[in-house]
């Protein structure tokens, strides 16, 4: 029988998580230069459209259909077949399958949208749309199946065989997007003028608004992943708040000590890094554990985002530094801080005398997902580059992609720009 309270929360969470992607569009859009701001936002909206179509056709089925050797789901739900009036979840906490399918769709959407930050200002729009479709199919769907498709021990190999813990997508969303972003940034190459010309964020208030939308939506992302409106959701929600708040402050503090000033971009980025670090862990650790992870993530990510200048890859909006690095810290943090007093379905980590078993499993999940995602994404991006081309022409990049690809511009301050 359908549990209406649980269903209401999962339905609301689906809407909350979808809200994150326009939030990401605004977060990213404010961070790039005005001449390509619309293109940046358009990449997120394309992710919503393309991913949804794929999800209906075969995405949901291959992710959550009956597992084949823990690697990929089956075709039985193609076209969302056998999902109407069906339920998922344990007795007493059943929700409509379509509520679950909608909720999970929004995760796929934001994960691929995150990647656009690594190739800001220089990707051909049509190639991006094609990339979204291929990447969701060949990278997101398998990884989501591995870590999310729990089927009484016979589902995805990470969740059911390895037994690594990932509450809301530290592997599927964060490490996956971080590793893929690195591959994309390497294949497409640096923006013209990287490290030489100023590429200041063109609108910091937009960045802060977007960060706020992401923070808000993340409660659906993390607490919604309980798939039930109970204690576990409450724990996940407050843990999300604690880690985001703590990381926003430690990022700013780290900046203050290093650069002399605490910046708005630092506070916004820290909040995201905190939400990322707690994503896999929020349903397995207690609030003080969330505080510790948040404090660490703010500093670690603030340091990590500066490494691209040293290594010379142009991960323009720091998907690797914020999502990849914080995602790894969150996954490792579970191995240390997890306790079954928070979640009986979880495990004990180091501190709760669970030994190194869980931590080892977490490391295996991190390494396999990161390697798979990096290699597969690199191949996909290379294939697109070699056929229809992925990188925009240099002239178009210098002009700005908004007018080139969309025949629009983000701002018309004077109201007279059609004349002069």
């Amino acid at each position, binding site marked *: 029988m359908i549990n209406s309270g649980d269903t209401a929360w999962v339905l609301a969470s689906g809407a909350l998580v979808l809200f994150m992607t326009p939030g990401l569009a605004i977060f990213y859009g404010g961070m790039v230069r005005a001449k390509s701001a619309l293109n940046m936002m358009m990449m997120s909206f394309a992710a919503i459209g393309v991913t949804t179509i794929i999800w209906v056709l075969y995405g949901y089925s291959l992710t959550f259909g009956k597992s084949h050797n823990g690697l990929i789901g089956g075709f039985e739900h193609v076209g969302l077949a056998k999902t109407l009036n069906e339920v998922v979840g344990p007795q007493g906490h059943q929700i409509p399958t379509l509520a679950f399918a909608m909720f999970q769709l929004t995760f796929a959407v934001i994960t691929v949208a995150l990647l656009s930050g690594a190739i800001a200002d220089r990707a051909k729009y049509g190639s991006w749309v094609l990339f979204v479709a291929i990447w969701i199919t060949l990278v997101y769907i398998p990884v989501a199946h591995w870590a999310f498709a729990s089927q009484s021990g016979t589902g995805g190999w990470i969740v059911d065989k390895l037994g690594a813990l990932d509450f809301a997508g530290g592997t599927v969303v964060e490490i996956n997007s971080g590793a893929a972003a690195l591959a994309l940034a390497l294949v497409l190459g640096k923006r013209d003028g990287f490290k030489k010309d*100023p*590429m*200041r*964020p063109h609108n910091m208030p937009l960045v802060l608004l977007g960060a706020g939308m992401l923070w808000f939506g993340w409660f659906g992302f993390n607490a919604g992943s309980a798939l039930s409106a109970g204690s576990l959701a409450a724990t996940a929600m407050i843990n999300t708040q604690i880690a985001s708040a703590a990381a926003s402050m430690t990022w700013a503090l780290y*900046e203050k000590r*290093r*650069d002399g*000033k605490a*910046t708005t*971009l*630092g506070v916004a*980025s820290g909040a995201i890094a905190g939400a990322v670090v707690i994503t896999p862990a929020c349903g397995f650790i207690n609030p003080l554990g969330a505080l510790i992870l948040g404090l660490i993530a703010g500093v670690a990510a*603030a340091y990590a*985002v*500066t490494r691209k*200048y040293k290594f010379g890859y142009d991960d323009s909006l*720091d998907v690797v530094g914020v999502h990849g690095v914080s995602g790894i810290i969150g996954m490792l943090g579970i191995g240390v801080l997890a306790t079954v007093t928070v979640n009986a379905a979880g495990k004990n980590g180091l501190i709760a005398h669970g030994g190194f078993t869980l931590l080892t499993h977490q490391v295996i999940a991190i390494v396999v997902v990161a390697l798979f995602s990096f290699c597969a994404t690199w191949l996909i991006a290379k294939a697109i580059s070699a056929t229809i081309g992925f990188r925009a022409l240099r002239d178009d990049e210098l002009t700005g992609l908004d007018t080139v690809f969309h025949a629009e511009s983000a701002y018309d301050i004077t109201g007279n720009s059609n004349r002069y």
Partner: protein
Amino acid sequence: MKLITAIVKPGKVDDIKKALQVNGIQGMTVSETRGFGRQKGHTEIYRGAEYTVDFIPKVRIEVLADDADAAGIVDLIVETANSGSIGDGKVWVTPVETVVRVRTGERGHDAL
């Protein structure tokens, strides 16, 4: 007739406007602009990366005046805009051949 052009710090514009109004100056034009002088640019930091911003926001004020009034207006602007710190700006005066009021067609002194 003279055109007095002043490049000043954005925060000084209101004070200058009031000072000019109090002293009976009838009109002025302001525009937001950017530039650098001896002050050079400034540094901004985004996610730990320093960017040197060469052109600093300033406001350009333009006032048309009779030859006899020009020196007084320049003094007024200089006094008001002066904070004693680098980057206060510059004021210069250029000769103007003629001025026409669009509505009436008045020329020269009458158009001011």
